[in-house]
């Protein structure tokens, strides 16, 4: 067991130095997600991801990291009888990702026009417009519940919006490079994440590049989580069995060691 854990840790450590560049969409704009294969073992407590590349001088850079859009069912709380807070039903969110992080060199509104933001779904209001929420009565209600949804997601660190975190440097030869190092939250579920990099000029996206971050469970963590899903009856018996024997075991220990009064 210990051996397995240290092996898993070794894999984890290796992936820290493991870097891979993926295909870029343009000749000028490049993007490399460093540490793009994150492995989850028992000692995983989040990681960090860096994205670097080259962008034309005079352009701003926006980086959007998302996982595939899907649908989410959440409980909504409301006041009943004017005084008590309770779950009052469910809301279905369609076409929203589970993970949504946008970083930019400057404030989004200052560097990109509204149409462009909507086109590329960059920013919360744009994601709201893109999303479908049911059941809601009107746009006002949609805005309210979308805001609550963002709060809920930000609370578990899977939604984030920040400007100024990307640093750009002018190289002596006239090229511009950008770099961001960001914390990768441990709350982000295993899966494939898309890193989209946009070079922006005159409030328009002029170039686009992409890479991916792959998050995967390994070793015992993977074995346990797949057993919970695919072998649920056995998993249930095992959980109960261990709990029963732990209870008896501790009882026996106490009988031997203490119990004198």
């Amino acid at each position, binding site marked *: 067991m210990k051996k397995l854990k240290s092996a898993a840790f070794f894999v984890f450590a290796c992936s820290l130095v493991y870097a891979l560049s993926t295909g870029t969409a343009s000749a000028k704009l490049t993007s490399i997600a460093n540490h793009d294969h994150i492995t989850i073992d028992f000692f995983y407590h989040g990681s960090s991801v860096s994205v670097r590349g080259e962008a034309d001088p005079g352009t701003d850079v926006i980086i959007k990291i998302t996982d595939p859009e899907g649908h989410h069912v959440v409980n909504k709380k409301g006041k009943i009888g004017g005084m008590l807070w*309770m779950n009052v039903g469910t809301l279905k969110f369609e076409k929203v990702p589970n993970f949504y992080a946008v970083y930019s060199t400057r404030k989004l509104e200052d560097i990109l026009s509204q149409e462009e933001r909507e086109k590329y779904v960059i920013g919360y209001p744009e994601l709201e417009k893109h999303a479908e929420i049911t059941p809601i009565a009107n746009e006002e209600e949609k805005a309210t519940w979308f805001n609550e949804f963002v709060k809920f997601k930000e609370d578990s660190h899977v939604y984030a919006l920040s400007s100024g975190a990307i640093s750009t440097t002018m190289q002596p030869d006239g090229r511009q490079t950008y770099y961001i190092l960001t914390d990768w939250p*441990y709350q982000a579920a295993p899966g494939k994440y898309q890193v989209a990099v946009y070079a922006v000029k005159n409030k328009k996206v002029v170039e686009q590049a992409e890479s991916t971050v792959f998050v995967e469970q390994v070793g015992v963590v993977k074995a346990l989580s797949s057993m919970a899903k695919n072998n649920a009856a056995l*998993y*249930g018996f095992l*959980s109960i069995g261990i*709990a*029963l024997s*732990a*209870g008896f075991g*501790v009882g026996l220990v106490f009988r031997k060691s203490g119990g004198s009064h």
Partner: protein
Amino acid sequence: MHLYLPVALTSINILIPVGLGLAVGLLSGLFGVGGGFLMTPLLIMCGIPSTIAAATDSNQIVAASTSGTYAHWRVGNVDFKMGLYLLGGGFVGGLLGVEGIKMLSAMGNAGFVIKITYVLMLGIVGTYMLIESIQSMRNRKTDETAMNKETRISTFLKSLPFQTRFEKSGVTHSVLVPLVLGCLVGILAAIMGVGGGFLMVPIMFYILRMPMHVIVGTSLFQILFTCIEVTFLQSYTNHTVDFTLAVLLLLGSTIGAQVGAVFGRKLKGEQLKILLALIVLVVTVKIIFELTLTPSLLISQAGGH
């Protein structure tokens, strides 16, 4: 040190679940309650999704209540016969309760009525227990009126058929009494999504007239079986049991339950009752706050029942 939880998909400092387990296990061994009222919300506060918090807690209670039942059984404080009858009733009650939830949710605002009823019941039971046990501790004469009231209930109970002797508890009841009471608590527990220890313990004391120390052991015995069933159903149908988290919790709770059981033996029945009454009242106040204060998040993960 942090550990990653494969089902909850989150990472937690291991001292938190071990410490929580210790504290809740102590309450469990002392009072014969599962402690889900405390554990589940605390786990949610630590970032565990609510459905996983509830299911994993029942897995942990299996260990804590085994440990506690064992400790109480060693000193002869578990009435297995009574426990089995209550369990039988509780099983039927659980099934009825699940059906009840379907019916009630079809009716709309029923959740509101149930919560209010539950808070009122807890409040009344807690207050009554507190007043009664303080009175009987101070002056045994003053509760003569209470005794009279209880004789009326006990005459009714005596008139029922199928009377049988419960040796361990030193009481005689119709088998219908624990069956029906177990059923009622089971219905409430299923609807409220709580274990029901808080209602079961006072019922065993005031209606079944069992001695306080036997109540704690018997209640734990009963909780053990209920939680085995819940753990299995949750892991089988909802995949919401995080075994890793349960192990961390039970490291603390199995020891806590032993300490609680030893500590409980040193207390008098009256003292136990007063403490339990205070905790029931604290829980009541907590639920009232939960219901009336504006929550920080208006959205939560859906799932569970």
